[in-house]
């Protein structure tokens, strides 16, 4: 459940938030919605796909983080940190926008007033901390980004540039993963676009986004290698003689 309140320097002065990536705070997701503003930052690490919202069927863009339910391969197995860019929707943690206000879900597992290792939101004098300022900056990216992404996706669908793809990956431990419900650019349809449409997509900056999405697919095999190493490590540790 959520318990969202508009952030206020008096009421929430003592509030602290765990900002770091961690499975216990909800980063254990294999797919997260992303916005077009961050595509260029995502591409060196994550495959970007289209997928459908389970509740509305509407298409959205998302980054793939893992293969199994709840698996985020960018959360290091040893609990350390990964230097990869973290998608805005994970960075935002418990924050929302309500109209033009910044709000916080007080019931989110990241919110914790008593833990001194967590980030403060306000200084004693009520000024926002550097962390809170970074969240405000992030929201200024994310909010218009969602709208831009929605229009981008609608344009792709309108020109029939989207096709479904079934991902089937075999791992060295003999297991397989099949992932359904993902969609990619239809490159055949892209090549056949009429000149005026291609030019329009270029002018709107969409052609670049399209090619970033296509390039990002290379990250599927990088992600698979990451998972493969973890699977093999798990087998190794099982095979080690017990003391």
């Amino acid at each position, binding site marked *: 459940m959520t318990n969202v309140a508009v952030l206020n320097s008096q009421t929430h002065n003592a509030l602290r938030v765990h900002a770091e990536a961690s499975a216990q705070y909800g980063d254990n997701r294999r797919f997260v919605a992303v916005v077009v503003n961050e595509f260029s930052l995502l591409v060196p690490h994550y495959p970007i796909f289209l997928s*459908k*919202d*389970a*509740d*509305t*069927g*509407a*298409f959205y863009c998302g980054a793939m983080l893992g293969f199994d339910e709840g698996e985020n391969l960018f959360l290091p197995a040893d609990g350390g940190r990964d230097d990869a860019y973290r998608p805005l929707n994970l960075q935002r943690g418990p924050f929302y926008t309500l109209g033009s206000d910044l709000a916080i879900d007080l019931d989110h597992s990241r919110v914790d007033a008593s833990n001194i290792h967590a980030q403060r939101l306000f200084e004693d004098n009520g000024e926002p901390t550097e962390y809170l300022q970074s969240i405000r900056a992030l929201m200024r990216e994310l909010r218009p980004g969602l709208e831009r992404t929605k229009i981008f996706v609608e344009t792709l*669908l309108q020109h029939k540039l*989207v*096709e*479904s793809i079934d991902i089937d990956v075999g791992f060295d431990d003999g297991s397989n993963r099949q992932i359904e*419900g993902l*969609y990619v650019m239809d490159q055949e349809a892209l090549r056949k676009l009429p000149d005026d449409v291609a030019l329009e997509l270029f002018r709107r900056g969409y052609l670049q986004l399209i090619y970033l999405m296509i390039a990002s697919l290379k990250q599927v095999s990088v992600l698979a290698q990451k998972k493969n190493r973890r699977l093999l490590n798990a087998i190794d540790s099982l095979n080690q003689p017990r003391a």
Partner: protein
Amino acid sequence: MNHVINSVVIVGGGTAGWLTAAIIAARHQGRMKAGFSVTLVESPNVSPIGVGEGTWPTLRATLKKIGISETEFFRHCDSAFKQGAKFARWTTDTPGDAYYHPLMLPQGFTELNLVPHWLGNEHGRTFCDAVCPQGELCELGLSPKMITTPEYQGAANYAYHLDAGKFAPFLQKHCTDKLQVRHILADVLRVNLNERGDISSLTTEQAGEISGNLFVDCTGFSAMLLGKTLGVGFRDCSDILFCDTALAVQVPYDAADTAMASHTISTAQTAGWIWDIGLPTRRGIGHVYSSRHSSEEQAREALLNYIGQQHKNLPVRKIPIRSGHREIFWKNNCVAVGLAAGFLEPLEASAIVLIELSAKLIAEHMPATREIMDIIATRFNDVTHYRWGRIIDFLKLHYVLTKRTDSKFWTDNVDPDTIPDRLKNLLKLWKYQSPWFFDEFDRLEEVFPAASYQYVLYGMGFRTEVDQLDMTATETQANRLINENIAVTKRLIAQLPKNRDLIDKIHQHGMQSI
């Protein structure tokens, strides 16, 4: 001299007329710029009958092919999902007497006939539940797909329930906006014939003379072109199918969110049966009965018992049913589609599917010239006769398997004199072998495939003799298929939303085309 066929005139603007116009116009879109035309002439004064709120899964492919968005179809035609039919009280009239005729084939239907295996060991399940998930999906009120499933695709096979009164105008708009169908509102005063007996033109009250070289009669029961003008007779089959009257009523839901069945419910009565079709805004319910076996008063009473006394003031519409079809369907340059071709009680929702199949046949075999038209007409008549015959047999099958003896209606129905010979022979055959591929239902566009016969036969307790030794070779495969069905059923039950919830979501968000 060759007389090129490039002008199709459809008379009648009901479901049959508009669906036929759409199918022909979509198929011949490319020829339009070379002068091919489809014209629909409709009387401004005759209101369509609006039969048939149930359809077959074929309608999905048909709508897709004519370029309609499934989302729009749901939003404009009060459409709902149909996953088959549940037949209650048809066998023994005891509480719990019910079986499903689902739209999904039995598991692995193309590899193995599961009937003998089920007969040998029922595993404590009905035939339908042993071989297919759909009966359980219907019982649980689930829809056949999810909001993420693309248009016209399903996790389970499905057809639609729809409001025929909205479907025809919806098709009309699509035909005139997108498919270049010419729409003329005019009353036909006279049908003009040429020297060889072909229809050359129509004289109309409001639009003068309308000429064409292929005429499609979609004028409903009156069969103005094929029957009245060209004199083709009507072949009555009320000696086989006794029901001749329907009392129809529209029943509102208690609340806007009342659960809605995703199947047709057909409940046998003393002298007929009651259909119950769930649309998003109302239930369409009707009592189809034999006036030779029941008075109208008794039939109204039975209907009221079904819908509940609180609905006793709802208007009831009486519709006469004349079971049967034209002696031929295509004569000279005139072909009949829809009620003009014939009608049968709506026990298996055969009306709209027959329109689709006939229109498709006309569209695919559109004669290039008048000179070859008679060859195509002969073929069309053969195929269409076969279809009507098979539908009559299949409807009769529901009656002949009954064990009910509570009224003359039911005992008359099992009288061998009322059973077509072909069906009689099949029933003899099925005592020793169950219908499957090597049966005779092998046409490319069979209206009811062998699977349908399996569901009805074994749903109604028919027994086919089984030789246990004969099955040992395929027992492992059969067990695998039956276990697969259990797994698929479990998965679908976990995934699929409630029927009404999905329809609400389709209205709100729409479905994606991919």
